[in-house]
């Protein structure tokens, strides 16, 4: 990384923090996936948990999604930020000590105790907010620390020529902190339908203001870094960014269409959902145009992950725009279709971005082990698993919707779903294997093999190339 040809001294990346968060991400991922697999098995064998209250379906379901969002994606995003922020700003993050605290807080005051408390029966029944209130307090504290850790370098540098990933990072950290209380605190204070309106905001903001911007920050970062070409259009980047932050929060009420929540709010949210599809087309067009020439399955596995993530992002967003529309929503709402949709978002789009981001930063930790073959396996197993699972859940959602519209007794829809649920559980085999391969890819193999693979696939270049105009700015400033 320290090429002498580079006019700028490479900013210090705290590779140990990258590594710690990356490893924590994959370990919490494996645990979260285990929760998910157990929950899906319990739909097939409902007495699987026996008399254990700790392993009953509801509690596993809570831990599955909270673990994916906070454990897996949270840690993976932090790992990426420790790599990207110094490179985007030319300055180190605020403090290594702070980073250690953040790491400890996030994993040992949020994720692990959150899981245990939920299993022990302390939780709140709010979607994407299932960890109990005491944990929520630590999440807010950690988000404040993350802002202190990652945002000052952007401001010290001055905001000129901010690369789009930087915008997404700043936006995500600030707005997640603002949005988090909407779903986690407000419904405890505001009852019933009124609380549900706020829940709707957070259900969408968790994905729209936390997961999506950081996943896009990764994609926007990895594509130019790995293709060694600037992004297609900075104008489209910024247009997409601002439309996203304008439209995403306005989607919330589409989770409660045909409810008692005022129809104008519902219609507004449905309209915003349709427009959001347009925004995503802009973003994805920009990304795909930046990827042109790399092929659908680029040689660099990190780039391949993020390019598939981009495609998943397009599909899941168009699907979201369509399913928010009343004619579709009335049928498929409450069904497995939506579970398919959320897996396409979190397992397809977000996980492929996070996995690609991890692979990318791992390649650039000189002392980290790196196993290219395992990552190849990981990519293809996950790809197959996601396609199988989402297709299956989409079909069974339609089957359920049809039965619910008919006069058939309720349980007919459960009976009809079971073969599909079996396939869904089957899809866990490639997915879990893919994640184990991801772990192997980042913990086995020779040390420094990542750099070597970069050299083989895209050639070794200093990482400052990711924002082509950045190098000039930094050198000018120094």
């Amino acid at each position, binding site marked *: 990384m320290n090429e002498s040809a580079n006019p700028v001294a490479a900013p210090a990346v705290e590779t140990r923090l990258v590594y710690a968060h990356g490893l924590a991400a994959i370990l919490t991922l494996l645990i979260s996936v285990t929760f998910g697999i157990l929950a899906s098995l*319990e*739909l097939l064998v*409902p*007495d699987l*948990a026996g*008399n*254990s*209250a700790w392993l*009953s*379906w*509801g*509690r596993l379901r*809570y831990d599955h999604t909270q673990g994916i969002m906070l454990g897996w994606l949270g840690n993976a995003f932090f790992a990426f930020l420790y790599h990207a922020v110094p490179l985007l700003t030319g300055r180190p993050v605020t403090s290594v000590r702070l980073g250690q605290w953040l790491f400890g807080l996030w994993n040992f005051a949020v994720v692990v105790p959150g899981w245990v408390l939920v299993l022990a*029966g*302390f*939780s*709140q*029944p709010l979607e994407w907010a299932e960890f109990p209130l005491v944990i929520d307090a630590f999440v807010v504290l950690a988000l404040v620390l993350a802002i202190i850790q990652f945002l000052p370098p952007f401001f010290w540098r*001055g*905001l000129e020529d901010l690369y789009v990933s930087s915008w997404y990072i700043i936006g995500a950290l*600030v*707005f997640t902190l*603002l949005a988090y209380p909407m779903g986690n605190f*407000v419904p*405890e*204070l505001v*009852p*019933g*339908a*009124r*609380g*549900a*309106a706020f829940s*709707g905001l957070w259900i969408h903001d968790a994905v729209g203001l936390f997961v999506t911007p950081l996943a896009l920050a990764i994609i926007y970062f990895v594509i130019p870094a790995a293709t060694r070409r600037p992004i297609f259009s900075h104008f489209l980047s910024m247009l997409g960014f601002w439309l996203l*932050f*304008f439209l995403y*929060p*306005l989607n*919330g*009420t589409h*989770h*409660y269409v045909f*409810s*008692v*929540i*005022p129809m104008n*709010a519902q219609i*507004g949210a449905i309209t915003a959902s349709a427009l959001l599809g347009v925004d995503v087309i802009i973003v994805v067009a920009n990304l795909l145009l930046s990827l042109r020439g790399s092929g659908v399955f680029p040689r660099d596995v990190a780039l391949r992950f993020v390019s598939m993530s981009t495609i998943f992002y397009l599909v899941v967003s168009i699907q979201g725009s369509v399913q928010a529309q009343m004619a579709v929503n*009335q049928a498929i709402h*409450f*069904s497995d279709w*939506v*579970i398919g949709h959320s897996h396409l978002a979190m397992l397809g789009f977000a996980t492929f971005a996070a996995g690609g981001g991890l692979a990318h930063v791992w390649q650039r930790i000189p002392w980290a082990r790196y196993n290219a073959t395992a990552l190849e396996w990981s990519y293809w197993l996950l790809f197959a698993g996601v396609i199988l699972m989402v297709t299956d859940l989409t079909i069974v959602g339609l089957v359920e919707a049809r039965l*619910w519209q008919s*006069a058939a007794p*309720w*349980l007919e829809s*459960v*009976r009809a779903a*079971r073969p599909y649920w079996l396939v869904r559980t089957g899809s866990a085999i490639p997915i879990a294997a893919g994640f184990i391969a991801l772990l192997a890819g980042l913990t086995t193999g020779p040390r420094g093999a990542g750099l070597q693979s970069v050299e083989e696939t895209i050639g070794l270049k200093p990482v400052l190339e990711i924002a082509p105009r950045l190098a000039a700015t930094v050198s000018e400033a120094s």
Partner: protein
Amino acid sequence: MSRDARRFLRMSYLVASVGGVLFFAMSVALLGIWPGRVLEDETRSMSPAHPLGLTVSEQRGRIIYGREGCAYCHTQQVRYLHADMARFGAPTLAWETRFDYPHLWGTRRIGPDLAREGGTHSEDWHFAHLFAPRNLVPDSVMPAYATLFDGSPDRPRQGARDLVSYLDTLGRARELAGPEGEAHARAACNCPNDEMAQMAFHAAALNVNPARTRRQGTSPKLPAAGDLVRGQQLYAHNCASCHGVRGEADGPGTAGLHPRPANLAGHEYTVDRLGYVLWNGVAGTAMQAWRDLPAEDLASLAQVVRGFHVAQQEPTLPANIVDLGAHVYTVNCAQCHGEHGAGDGSAVAELSMTPADFRGARPSVAESLRALRNGVEGTPMAPWTGRLSEAELSAVAYYVRGFFQGAQ
């Protein structure tokens, strides 16, 4: 880059940042605060003056409901859609949720919506169902909550009692508000031209759940014959868990049900009686209604049920025995079971459930004697051994069989 350009850029970033925060604030205002105010007004104007809140036990039940993730399979929100209304009743109004901290609306339905569950199933059904769901509902995927019990559905711990008492509150406030409450809400809504809002106020739709039992009700006239194969399939899916595969009331679901499910093989039923019971359920017992099944299916079921009965040779009884039975019946049974055995005696209104209707269901002598000797647990039918002699018991056991109106 020139200095002016930089200054401009810096300003534009400032403007953009302020704009970003404004976007977010706008979303909170438009989709959180404003709808909240509308809903608050609606709640205030449409709610009855003193809606019933939750007792301490019911609140504890609500916490268990939340902690076990019940809301992640059972929504508590009937949408303004005919498909929802047909299954679960009237759409949920804002005021009905005014005590829900936090709300339990849910976004996924694996099991049915529970917004109007109160009064739909009996307490013993809930206990038995929570203890071992598949004993009652084969193919259900609901987890068993045996940890809320002390080893059997008859021995619920406090947690199970709390949870079931909470389940019985779902939809209660609206039901208690009654027709006056509906009229008040409708007037407060003041939305005669809003087709969707009007959906909430169809009086007949409030508790239209097809499983909900009705103590009094009509029933469709079933065709005399049904499709036996279809009937057997329906019976296996929906009835055998309690009534047993051969109708001998020995299914796994019998544990914990009070009264026990009817012994179908021990009774001879008229098609009309079966139609009535299937359509309305048996209020006060675990027998739910099956109004979601079309009449042909009910006829098929009726045929299966009638097939369990093995005809007995009717003995010719001496006149003095018949007279004794008639006398005992008139003195001891008619207040409840009615002068003509129709289950319509003068005391019926005081009873927690409707007494057996002997015109539509003829018990075997053994069944009849069993009920007379032991009473029927979980019903007002008391044991009569201390009060009647063996001869009297026997005589009345035969006598009630004479009311049956379906004999070939």
